């Protein structure tokens, strides 16, 4: 069981800044995120795109903003459970919550801050009638353990970086790799595209474009996929395989959080914006893009503000009745949990001769 003061669900910009604000109040944070890395949308969707409305940054790349936020909160030693999705929440008799992920990792905290953005990123599943029947029986939407493909026949579908990169990687592992894409053009990095071309020329990757997988054949497991390549061959044909891996990117879904008994409106969690962004369940807050209230704007800078006010209430819950006064970091400095201290240099007093 991982124990912390504030359990943050979502390691995007709002969640990361919460770690800093909580740290100033001597509260420790742990973050859960379904993605394998911190940064949320900023790193998953558009790391190389600039953002122009972060105060004091005329321009910053989304990926760089994530790195800066990680650096800013580093001395407060946040814990991370990455690549796991928060699944259930249970209130305990002492008022704390236990949040369990889809992989069974348990976390306990007196305060839960949902900073889940648009939700957790789930693989986009192609619209093939019987695909659900073959899930975990040869159909995988994400590659977790490449070893299961050793000496197997694999069909990958998709036209982005992950489809290209995994085709390249698996060409050394699997006995046969077929890459199927709806267009002749791929939108991955140029060197990945060139590498696939090279492997195709060497006969290590079987490339079928423009084409689409329209059906899956097999009894208890995948035995072949049905490929439609209308532009060239009027008739559908079959490609024998042991695994079919559709890699069509990720799309965010509110997911299990929707079943936590929280008031939901417009796919977002309703909060009290007159005070502290608490939800209808005391002790559970929602901050950043995941919440809604009259006049809500889904902006990173609004998430920062919400995180800051939320931490004040978290302090009261964790330290009931304890005195607190706002301190400016310029005056008080920043004392890290790792023993480091940042402070403004003292002004030197020197008399005139």
């Amino acid at each position, binding site marked *: 069981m991982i124990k912390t003061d504030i359990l943050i669900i979502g390691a995007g910009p709002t969640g990361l800044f919460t770690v800093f604000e909580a740290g100033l109040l001597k509260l420790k944070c742990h973050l859960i995120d379904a993605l394998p890395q911190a940064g949320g*949308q900023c790193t998953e*969707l*558009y790391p190389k795109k600039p953002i122009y409305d972060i105060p004091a940054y005329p321009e910053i790349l989304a990926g760089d903003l994530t790195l800066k936020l990680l650096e800013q909160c580093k001395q407060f030693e946040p814990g991370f459970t990455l690549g796991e999705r928060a699944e259930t929440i249970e209130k305990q008799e002492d008022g704390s919550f236990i949040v369990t992920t889809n992989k069974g990792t348990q976390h306990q905290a007196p305060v839960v801050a949902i900073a889940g953005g648009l939700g957790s990123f789930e693989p986009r599943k192609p619209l093939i009638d019987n695909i659900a029947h073959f899930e975990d029986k040869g159909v995988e939407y994400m590659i977790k353990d490449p070893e299961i493909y050793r000496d197997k026949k694999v069909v990958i579908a*998709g*036209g982005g970086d992950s489809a290209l990169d995994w085709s390249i990687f698996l060409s050394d592992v699997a006995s046969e790799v077929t890459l199927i894409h709806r267009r002749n*053009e791929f*939108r991955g990095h140029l060197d990945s595209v060139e590498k696939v071309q090279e492997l195709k020329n060497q006969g290590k990757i079987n490339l079928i474009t423009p084409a689409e997988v329209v059906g899956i054949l097999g009894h208890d497991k995948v035995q072949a996929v049905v490929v439609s390549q209308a532009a060239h061959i009027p008739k559908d044909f079959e490609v024998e395989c042991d695994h079919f891996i559709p890699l069509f*990117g990720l*799309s965010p879904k509110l997911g299990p959080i929707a079943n936590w008994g929280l008031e939901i409106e417009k796919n977002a969690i309703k909060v009290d914006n007159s005070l502290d962004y608490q939800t209808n369940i005391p002790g559970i807050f929602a901050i950043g893009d995941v919440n809604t209230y009259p006049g809500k704007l889904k902006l990173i800078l609004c998430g920062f503000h919400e995180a800051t006010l939320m931490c004040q209430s978290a302090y009261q819950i964790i330290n009931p009745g304890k005195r607190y006064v706002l301190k400016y970091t310029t005056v008080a400095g920043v004392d890290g949990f790792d023993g480091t201290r940042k402070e403004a240099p003292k002004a030197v007093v020197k008399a005139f001769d």
Partner: protein
Amino acid sequence: MEQDVNITIIDREGVSHSIEAPTDMAMNLMEVVRSYELAPEGTIGICGGMAMCASCQCYVLSDTALPEKQDDEEAMLSEAFFVKDNSRLGCQIQITPEMEGLKVQLAPAE
């Protein structure tokens, strides 16, 4: 308003809406749909308008002249679902005075 154009949007339930879209606010079709709340929040414009998701996919039903697809729109549509020959991403269509009479239908949510 005189700088508005009249366009028709058929929502995902099949209901037709005749609306006025401003041409002077640098709005795109996806943003017009959101401003009129013709699709639930969180189901359209998920990536914010970067042609990186297909949640604003629509079918163009009128023969209105529209700007050509750029590479990123073309690439996204090649990975989207429910794509037809008249599919476009609403976020890549800026509303201009030439769009008077445009008629589109929102593609199903994925």
